[in-house]
């Protein structure tokens, strides 16, 4: 049911009955390593191309999510997924392996929450009982498509972010035990004219702020209703900007813990990742790997994930266009009250 202007309220309380995350070596060296189902020690994952490696991540995450949910592959009624590659090839090729009816979505790095919101909507509307939502990214495929060849020696500025190698998948169902998807706020495209593709945190911060405010306006909730509000991949430059903007607009964000997946996934002191993590995999592996575990343990009761995405392409920024950005927020509760 629509609540307010842009928020879906899931009164049937769709449940995340299983989740899984698979990551690469850098994420395995990070502070959340223990929360992932599988850590690949090599970036190529013994595949011939980077693209095949990225696809493998998503296929493995989907497979493990099915196992964790104790659901057979043919029980999956719909698969909603997307990624950063041109024509979202990683998700579509993974869907070929999965063999389930498939909806491909693109929201850049916000795809994690976009697909989770849609999967929950399908379940809430009674249109499906087992829906898989998943996304992935690979550092090298993204470098190759959006920046330079992976081995090219270009110095990255401190505002740049390191694309996460990882995939996360969840199975949303109308019955069973697990964290509950309460509602989702679908973001608008916001563009305040930032043109630097090496400073996407600053480009995306206003989109996150817009969606967070819309979420509170639509639901009547405030920051203190959440134990944790976490943005997707604003990292060390964008996250403080978002915080300042929220405080400026009178949102009492200090009443809760406000952090960012791009800051959590790596050890920014030890790992050479500039401002932090980014990519579709960033919010997916932090949310599905780390945060859902904390919800299940009872450390957190209710969280809001605001996945942010920069909707640019190499073509658009070479033509001098600014970076349009989006953020989708999903509220997840432990389902134990």
């Amino acid at each position, binding site marked *: 049911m*629509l609540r307010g202007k842009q928020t879906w309220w899931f009164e049937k309380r769709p449940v995340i009955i299983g989740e899984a995350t698979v990551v690469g070596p850098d994420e395995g060296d990070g502070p959340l390593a223990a929360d992932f189902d599988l850590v690949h020690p090599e970036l190529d994952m013994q595949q011939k191309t980077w693209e095949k490696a990225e696809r493998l991540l998503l296929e493995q995450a989907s497979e493990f999510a099915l196992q964790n949910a104790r659901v057979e592959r043919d029980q999956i009624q719909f698969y909603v997924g997307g990624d950063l590659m041109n024509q979202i090839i990683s998700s579509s090729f993974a869907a070929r392996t999965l063999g389930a009816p498939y909806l491909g979505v693109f929201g850049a790095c916000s795809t994690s929450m976009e697909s989770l919101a849609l999967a929950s909507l399908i379940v809430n509307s009674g249109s499906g009982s087992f829906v898989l939502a998943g996304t992935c990214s690979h550092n090298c495929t993204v470098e190759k498509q959006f920046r330079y060849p992976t081995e090219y020696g270009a110095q990255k500025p401190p505002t740049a972010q390191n694309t996460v190698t990882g995939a996360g998948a969840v199975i949303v169902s109308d019955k069973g035990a697990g964290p509950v998807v309460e509602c989702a706020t679908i973001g608008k495209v916001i563009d305040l004219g930032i043109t630097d593709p090496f400073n996407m945190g600053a480009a995306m911060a206003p989109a996150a702020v817009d969606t967070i405010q819309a979420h*509170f306006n639509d639901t009547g909730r405030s920051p203190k209703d959440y134990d944790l509000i976490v943005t997707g991949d604003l990292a060390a430059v964008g996250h403080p900007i978002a915080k300042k903007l929220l405080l400026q607009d009178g949102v009492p964000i200090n009443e809760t813990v406000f952090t960012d997946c791009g800051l959590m996934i790596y050890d920014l002191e030890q790992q050479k990742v500039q401002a932090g993590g980014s990519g579709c995999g960033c919010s997916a592996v932090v949310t599905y790997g780390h945060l859902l575990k904390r919800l299940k343990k009872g450390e957190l009761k209710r969280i809001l994930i605001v996945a942010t995405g920069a909707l640019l392409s190499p073509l658009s920024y070479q033509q001098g266009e600014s970076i349009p950005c989006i953020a989708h927020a999903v509220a997840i509760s432990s389902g134990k009250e």
Partner: protein
Amino acid sequence: MATKSKGGPKYKKMTMSPKEYQSFAKTMEPPRSILGNCLKAFVFGGGICVFGQCIQELFVHLMGMTEEAASNPTVATLILISVILTSLGVYDKIAQWAGAGSAVPVTGFANSMCSAALEHRSEGLVLGVGANMFKLAGSVIVFGTVAAFFVGIAHLILGTGGQ
């Protein structure tokens, strides 16, 4: 079926104009040390040149080449080293520290070609390696040739070039 929350919206939407936001975002960027980066580039780039000079001296003194004859094998040696370091995945890590120091000398040019060739090998030899090898280096060649053309014209007009 939309249910309206009671009263007006709780929080007013952002009022900052794009111009205001861009200058605000600029102030939030971590500082970059121009002097530090210049120094690193100078030291590392200079280091490569000193190393190149050493190789040339070896060719001159050990193999009895003239200085002019030694310059070609010297450049080839530097290119070979750069390509090996690129293939081992080391060159980009050095470049993050060295900046322009590793980009400007001939080693940077070799790195740009080798990295593109490696990256696009998966798309085949012709459409992958062949078509993409000059993806980054191509503009150096184009503008290098254009610049040489205009310098040549200037020499001709001023009567400073040639014999």
